[in-house]
């Protein structure tokens, strides 16, 4: 298993946002986590990176227990994230943002990785010297994913890559996620409210309600599930 999470509990102060989460992600898989706003999806992704730190439970990356490592050390083990809100460094150029993505990578790969990422996101190529904060929402999302890819991650975490984007851009982003997995053999764990796209793309999916996993199955199974259709699909998401 690339990622094994067992009984993960995480909290903000006294508020428990994760109440014992179990899930696995196999090497090379794309796994989607869907759930309503406030379910705890972001908290799960972030606690895989140590923020907030797991209060109980285990997080294993391949054979390493990473639950107690500081964030930068987890990232150095091969986890990269395009977090909620994108968190582009606003006053650094696009190129510098990408360089920062590569902080943990072997510098020998930098040039070829940069070329590859700019190949995936040609829009960024024209804007390399522009400040990150001046990009459009879609471009920032591309930069956030590109920055994560520059780390040459084993496990790529994506938090709502489609949030706030025009349908056409959403399609583009999901196509690129599929391409990344195919070409680079990266394992992808993504969080989405946009269940339709996510489940169509994913090999497997989990559903989170109130800090707990309530359902899991293949992407197709979950897409066909009437409960899920009612809760997450027929609500009008593209």
């Amino acid at each position, binding site marked *: 298993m690339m990622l094994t999470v067992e009984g993960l509990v995480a909290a903000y102060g006294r508020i428990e946002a994760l109440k014992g989460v179990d899930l696995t992600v196999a090497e090379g898989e794309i796994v989607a986590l869907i759930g309503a706003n406030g379910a705890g999806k972001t908290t799960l992704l972030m606690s895989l990176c140590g923020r907030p730190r797991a209060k109980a439970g285990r997080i294993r990356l391949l054979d390493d227990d990473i639950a107690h490592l500081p964030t930068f050390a987890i*990232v150095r083990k091969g986890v990269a994230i395009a977090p909620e809100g994108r968190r582009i460094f606003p006053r650094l150029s696009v190129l510098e943002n990408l360089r920062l*993505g590569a902080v943990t990578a072997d510098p020998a790969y930098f040039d070829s990785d940069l070329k590859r990422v700019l190949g995936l996101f040609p829009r960024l190529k024209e804007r390399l010297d522009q400040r990150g904060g001046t990009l459009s929402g879609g471009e920032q999302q591309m930069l956030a994913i590109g920055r994560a890819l520059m780390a040459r991650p084993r496990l790529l975490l994506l938090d709502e890559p489609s949030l706030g984007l025009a349908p056409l851009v959403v399609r583009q982003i999901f196509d690129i996620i599929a391409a990344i997995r195919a070409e680079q053999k990266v394992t992808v764990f993504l969080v989405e409210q946009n269940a339709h796209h996510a489940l169509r793309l994913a090999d497997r999916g989990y559903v989170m309600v109130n800090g707990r996993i309530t359902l899991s199955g293949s992407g197709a199974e979950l897409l066909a599930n009437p409960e899920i259709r009612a809760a997450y699909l027929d609500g009008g998401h593209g």
Partner: protein
Amino acid sequence: MAYFLQQLVNGVALGAIYGLIAIGYTMVYGIIGMINFAHGEIFMIGAFLSLIALLLIAALGISNVPLALALTLLFAMAFAALYGWTVERLAYRPLRGSQRLAPLISAIGMSIVLQNTVQLLQGARVKPLQPVITGGLVLMEGDGFVVRLSYLQIIIMLLTLALMIGFTWLIHNTTLGRAQRATEQDMTMAALVGIDVDRTISATFVMGAALAAVAGLMVTLYYGVVDFYIGFHAGVKAFTAAVLGGIGSLPGAMLGGLLIGLIEAFWSGYFTIEYKDVAAFAILILVLIFRPTGLLGRPEIEKV
């Protein structure tokens, strides 16, 4: 005219020194969003370390002045950097993430501890030093007044210029500099790309302290005396310089330092030397009221 020119020369030299100290304030503020109140004391320690080194080197019989100065600089920078690192570890890091007031109090406490330690070790007596660098250039003579640019002033200006260029380059072009700017903009995201944020913050304290030590050496040579409370006075002025230039801004710290140096020189040249420290306080208060972002600071809105 000649008198004016002389004040200008003096002001630029003084401003260079303030600018070097101001960089430490501005960088630490930029990265952790708080004022390192112990920074003035680090400067004071840098001055004492310089004095000790100069006396030691003289005692060892090294009479080559450039060599003696280089050794002194190295010694002062290394030990001041160690002090800066220790201050961060002891007074700031344990309180990271707590309320804003706690590290502030901790910083002031650290400042008092450092001041009193040096006072105990060195005695409250003013320490004199024989002039190490003498002589200079006569720039012009007029109105029965001679305008001098001393060799020491030239060294101060050139060394400061070199350090500021080198430093700016480092911040913009190295991995460490990029990590510092990233940490400054979004500490969480910096950690998420794999930056060791604690180490980056330590490095910032170390760099600021090393520059303050250079300023300490300059002041030691310039005035020939060191006492344990110079840290407070110079600290207030350098802090004012940082605020005037725009706290968090590197070029702002340099510009602010220069302006404060000039204001102080002209104030003592044309008004009265007694109130020269009041000028810095007055400017600090005026800037905080009318332009809290300083001259080169960015408006808070842009800080995403």
